[in-house]
């Protein structure tokens, strides 16, 4: 391992880290507002990747521009698609077992279980619809690089880095400034008090669930041009996302962003020293270590009170 290798990996880590961080924001939003562990979050990322793939290759968007802009546009467009799907899922299934009426007497088991069921259906439904062969979104930028001394900086990664940052900033500004963003934060902070001042908590949950899914899907769409994906890819992302979110402190979006970035860095740096299988195992081990030793996160406070 030379110094160049190290810096090359560091740069790639940061660039790849931004979409990972975006994924974590999506998950962090859902967990922060609903206090529900969503196993299907990885599947939303997977659907984002496939959404981008099908928009880019099937829907004739290619006519609009070169394949680079198509791939990028497709990645972002995958978000609204998954947003709609998640909205429907919350309306039809998740909303029936979550919310303040269910949280108290339930020990959260039905909520976790229903997302497990959704995750299985999406995963294997994806296998039926999309087949098992790995895909990636064709993008001419994926093979082009800026050169900086001996370091190569992949153009597709640079674009997805900036796009992820944009979406993350838009998201946080919306939460901070808009009326519905404020309502969402109120519903997260104290559902009961929010109800008393006239906020529809169920509606807020639905927005959070759909938005969180959509944001993770955009991240999935953005990394789709560089990383190949299969219907089963969700499980690996779910672990990275939870590790990132827990690292940053559950309930904090900035924390989630930093956490996701850190996880991507760790994963990239591990490629220098570990064989392939153990890189993935490392994510799980880090995740376990975090949850066992510091479930309140490195920066955050504990949100899980007795």
């Amino acid at each position, binding site marked *: 391992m030379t110094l160049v290798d190290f810096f090359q990996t560091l740069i790639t880590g940061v660039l790849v880290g931004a979409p990972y961080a975006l994924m974590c924001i999506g998950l962090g939003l859902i967990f922060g507002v609903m206090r529900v562990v969503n196993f299907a979050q990885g599947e939303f990322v997977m659907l984002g990747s496939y959404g981008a793939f099908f928009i880019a290759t099937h829907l004739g968007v290619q006519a609009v521009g070169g394949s680079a802009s198509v791939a990028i546009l497709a990645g972002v467009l995958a978000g609204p698609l998954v947003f709609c799907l998640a909205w429907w899922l919350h309306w039809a299934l998740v909303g029936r077992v979550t919310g303040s009426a269910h949280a108290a007497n339930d020990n*959260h088991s*039905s909520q976790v279980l229903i997302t*497990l*069921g959704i995750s299985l*259906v999406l995963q*294997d439904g994806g296998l*039926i619809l999309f087949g098992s062969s790995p895909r990636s979104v064709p993008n001419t930028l994926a093979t082009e690089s800026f050169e900086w001394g001996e370091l190569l900086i992949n153009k597709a990664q640079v674009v997805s880095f900036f796009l992820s940052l944009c979406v993350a900033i838009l998201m946080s500004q919306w939460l901070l400034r808009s009326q519905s963003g404020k309502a969402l934060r109120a519903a997260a902070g104290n559902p009961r008090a929010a109800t008393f001042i006239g906020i529809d908590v169920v509606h807020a949950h639905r927005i959070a669930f759909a938005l969180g899914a959509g944001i993770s899907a955009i991240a999935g769409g953005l990394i789709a041009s560089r990383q190949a994906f299969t219907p089963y890819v969700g*499980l690996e992302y779910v672990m990275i996302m939870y590790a990132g979110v827990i690292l940053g402190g559950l309930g904090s979006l900035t924390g989630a962003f930093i956490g996701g970035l850190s996880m991507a860095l760790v994963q990239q740096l591990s490629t220098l020293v570990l064989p392939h299988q153990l890189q993935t*195992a490392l994510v799980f081990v880090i995740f376990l270590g975090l949850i066992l030793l510091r479930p309140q996160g490195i920066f955050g406070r504990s949100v899980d009170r007795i």
Partner: protein
Amino acid sequence: MKALRDLFTAREGQALIAVAVLISAVLLSVTDKYLLLVLTQVLIWALLGLAWNLIGGYAGQMSFGHAAFFGVGAYCVAAGYAYANISPWIGLVVAALMGGLAALVIGAITLRLRGHYFALAMLAYPMALLYVFEWAGLQEVTMPMRDSQGWTVLQFSDPRWFGMLALAAVLVVSSLTFWIERSRHGLCLAAVREDEAAAQASGVNVFAVKLRAMVLSGAIAAVAGGLYAAMMLIVTPRAVFGMFVSAQAIIVCLFGGVATFWGPLIGASVLVPMSEWLTANFGSSLPGIQGVMYGAAIIAVVLFAKEGLYWRISDALARRWGVGSKRKKVGESPECSTRGEDEPVSRSEAEAPPGNDDRVILDVKGLGRAFGGVVAVADFNITVRKGAIHGLIGPNGAGKTTAFNLINGFVRPDKGSVILDGIDATGNAPEVLCARGVGRTFQTPRAFRRLSVRDNVRVGALTQTRSDDDARDLTEHALGLAGLSEAEADQLASSASVLQLRLMEIARALAGRPSLLMLDETLAGLGREDLPRVVAAIKGIAASGVTILIIEHTMHVVASIVDELTVLDHGRVIANGQPDLVLQMPEVIESYLGKKWMLHAA
């Protein structure tokens, strides 16, 4: 031995034996190899479901990682035979040991987590193991076939024998579950599942109970994995550590019914053949149909039959025929004579209980605790004399309940000391304190909702004695002292009134034979007409020689029953002494009614 007799005499036990006979008849009459394979798979997944049921159903700890134990078992059998020529018969024993060991290690570090943290952490173990096994070069372990004397390595010339072996395993584990359900372990598991804090306060060592269930569960799951390996003759990390295995363990149990041994049996016999049929017919065109079906099954169960088919059906039967459900729902019986009222209990008795001397039972000095910047209890001192009824009052937010939690071990104090009977008890865990003779009730009653009132009380008695008969006597005695009638004791806690729950909590604490009983706002939320019954119970308990420390708001009651009164405000003791004197102190009136009132009064 009594358990074995129960198996043959209880209706459920007989039903289990009948089902076993039926399955073996089916197994032995089947000659079609494929059908036999499906049947054997049903049994293996049922076995895994039974394993999961112990920790996920009975103890209520949602494990999403039982593939870890299943996989360890499968690799013990497969790799042991393929690389070290260890017979799978021995391999199964090794699998059970290793599975139990893995569960001990995983449980010891993970069971401290609660709720979704536990579920998430459990998910990570099989995933990490999966990649470690792939890296270790165990991508595919094939068990060599043996031509002669195959039975010595679990390769029977007639595959029906293998099915019978799996059936035997299922039967043994079902009987074990049957026994646990009826034993004190089952009751402790139910208490842990329903309410961990209340279980702790009743003296149950929650962590030990969970860990025991986990180890047993892990060992059984590993045996299921070992049988799977011996049946398939080939093991890959994805097949045994994959998410699908963990999910299947949950689904067969949840679908069939949690916390009953019928659950996994029903779940596996419905779902496994269905998924096999789907795969056989549509598997080539719809490759993921199996997973979609399991996912849909789990969603359907969560939405429509929360605890599984078994409970759904038995509830429906119970409604129609009035029998059949194991959940005893006893209606209000007209003649409910309360034994508590029969016993003459009076204040005069309370004044001369045996051992009412001035010796101190509880001595608290300088206890303090802050949560972040909020100082809940700043400096708490109290001295409770043996045999007294000692009241603790103070305005809302004064720190009364926190003070209780500090004494009781639910919250660790930052400073100060708790001396119980002359021996230091600062920071002792609730169950340790319970064993040392401190019982407590909660501000909002914490019942084990799906147990009967009597069983709620029995949980408190279990930690006191090894003998079930003694526990029963203690329970009945406590129920009597608290003044609960037979009919009231028989009903489910979830259908009991607030009054009954308050009395139940007192009885549950009493069943642990406490020398000190801590009551947290026992009269709160009761109607005026209910008060005398609880007051009578409290006086009766004091008369029997138990010291009582009670938090209360109802002033006239406090004044009439307590011997000594401590007033807490802003986390500090502001007054202490005889109730009538204390209640006239200006600082006490001020803390309750404010300065303004004082001026008016003056």
